[in-house]
């Protein structure tokens, strides 16, 4: 058995790892764990990753969680082109700087709209307007920093070439675009960057990775999304309660 990747393309970090593996020709057996059904919170999956989080990588007996750790592991194991995770001291530090900031300011904030627009309503919970507004402000602020501080006048977030940082950022932004956010209006540099990263990855791969999330609103409207399993309810309710 080769490497197995447990993922759901609904989730941003899952897509980042998926795209990275595909783009670099890394052979992976894909195991979809349906997040909306709550399959990540049921026994079968918890035996593999007791934290119940995606993506999860299984390489023989070695099980690894956390998308950034998985990306670094794959880039080292498969010796992918240096630009992804540069060996140069300062260039690599820029990637880690971005990933640190991303974990603080992007990850939690950009995940919320899916809960507001799709997952909450699916289990009959409405997120209060005041929280939605606060999230909108936090998104705006983060985008501003992303454009001014990280992108600046460079072609990519951590320098002259595409890195893991761009991939992680791209997928978080894609999540919001799929939910109808006009992220690039009034942000021409960010828009150009976005085009540049997608062009590098290739339209076909992007489309393949993004098709599920781009159909999510339509599926929600048509009520064709799966029903979450009762075992997933407590974790879902807790997640919604924690929206600041």
């Amino acid at each position, binding site marked *: 058995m080769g490497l197995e990747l447990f993922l759901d393309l609904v989730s941003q970090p899952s897509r980042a790892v998926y795209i990275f593996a595909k783009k670099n020709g890394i052979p992976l057996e894909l195991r979809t764990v349906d997040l909306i059904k709550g399959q990540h919170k049921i026994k079968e999956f918890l035996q593999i990753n*007791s934290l119940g989080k995606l993506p999860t990588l299984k390489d023989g007996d070695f099980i690894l969680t956390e998308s950034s750790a*998985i990306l*670094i592991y794959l880039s080292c194991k498969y010796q992918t082109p240096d630009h992804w995770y540069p060996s140069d001291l300062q260039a690599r*530090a820029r990637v880690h*700087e971005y990933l*640190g*900031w991303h974990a603080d300011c992007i990850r939690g904030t950009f995940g919320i709209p899916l809960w507001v627009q799709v997952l909450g309503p699916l289990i009959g919970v409405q997120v209060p307007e005041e929280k939605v507004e606060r999230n909108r402000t936090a998104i705006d602020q983060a985008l501003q920093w992303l454009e*001014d*501080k990280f992108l600046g006048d460079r072609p990519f977030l951590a320098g002259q070439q595409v890195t893991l940082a761009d991939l992680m950022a791209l997928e978080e932004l894609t999540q919001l675009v799929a939910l109808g956010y006009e992220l690039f209006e009034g942000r021409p540099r960010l828009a150009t960057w976005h085009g540049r990263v997608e062009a590098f990855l290739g339209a076909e791969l992007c489309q393949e990775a993004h098709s599920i999330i781009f159909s999510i609103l339509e599926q929600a409207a048509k009520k064709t999304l799966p029903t979450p399993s009762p075992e997933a309810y407590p974790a879902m309710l807790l997640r919604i309660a924690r929206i600041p």
Partner: protein
Amino acid sequence: MGLELYLDLLSQPCRAVYIFAKKNDIPFELRIVDLIKGQHLSDAFAQVNPLKKVPALKDEDFTLTESVAILLYLTRKYKVPDYWYPQDLQARARVDEYLAWQHTTLRRSCLRALWHKMMFPVFLGEPVSPQTLAATLAELDVTLQLLEDKFLQNKAFLTGPHISLADLVAITELMHPVGAGCQVFEGRPKLATWRQRVEAAVGEDLFREAHEVILKAKDFPPADPTIKQKLMPWVLAMIR
């Protein structure tokens, strides 16, 4: 000018960077950025880090922010002992995994515990509702359990038989709720023994020195109204 580190030992990631640099005899100029006076919000500091966060590192004309990035940069630049961030692929991945996990979980719990239990009521003079405090402490409890059960398990250190960056980043976090008076290690014998092991590996004097500020935070004089007004938006954004 050599390496400069902009720190305030009140901040948990700053303590991790400070201990790491000292322990590994990395020469640096310490630039104190006094958080409770709001020095990180000053225009002068914005020149160093426009995001107004500590720690920050300056190495000649290279400026770097984010504690994990700084720790990894120092690790590579100064050829420190391998156990901090092992060369071995899987051992290293365990450290990366922990560092990513703590960012979105333990970090938040420890920060909120400190502010809700102590800094809001004592330093800022802002009462915290019993419900909010209870929720914060319950969240901390769950996260500590995960730390013990999923990461520490029966190992000597979080990612294996030796101390690594993961342990340093974790212990400096846990000292936040300890500073607020939470009984973090009570009823958690494995975590308590681990703490002793980390303290011994770091050296007790260095550990004590790095934590003097947080352990005395309960005696900070209350913030005057100007400072409070200046800090409030930052605090609220930080602990949301």
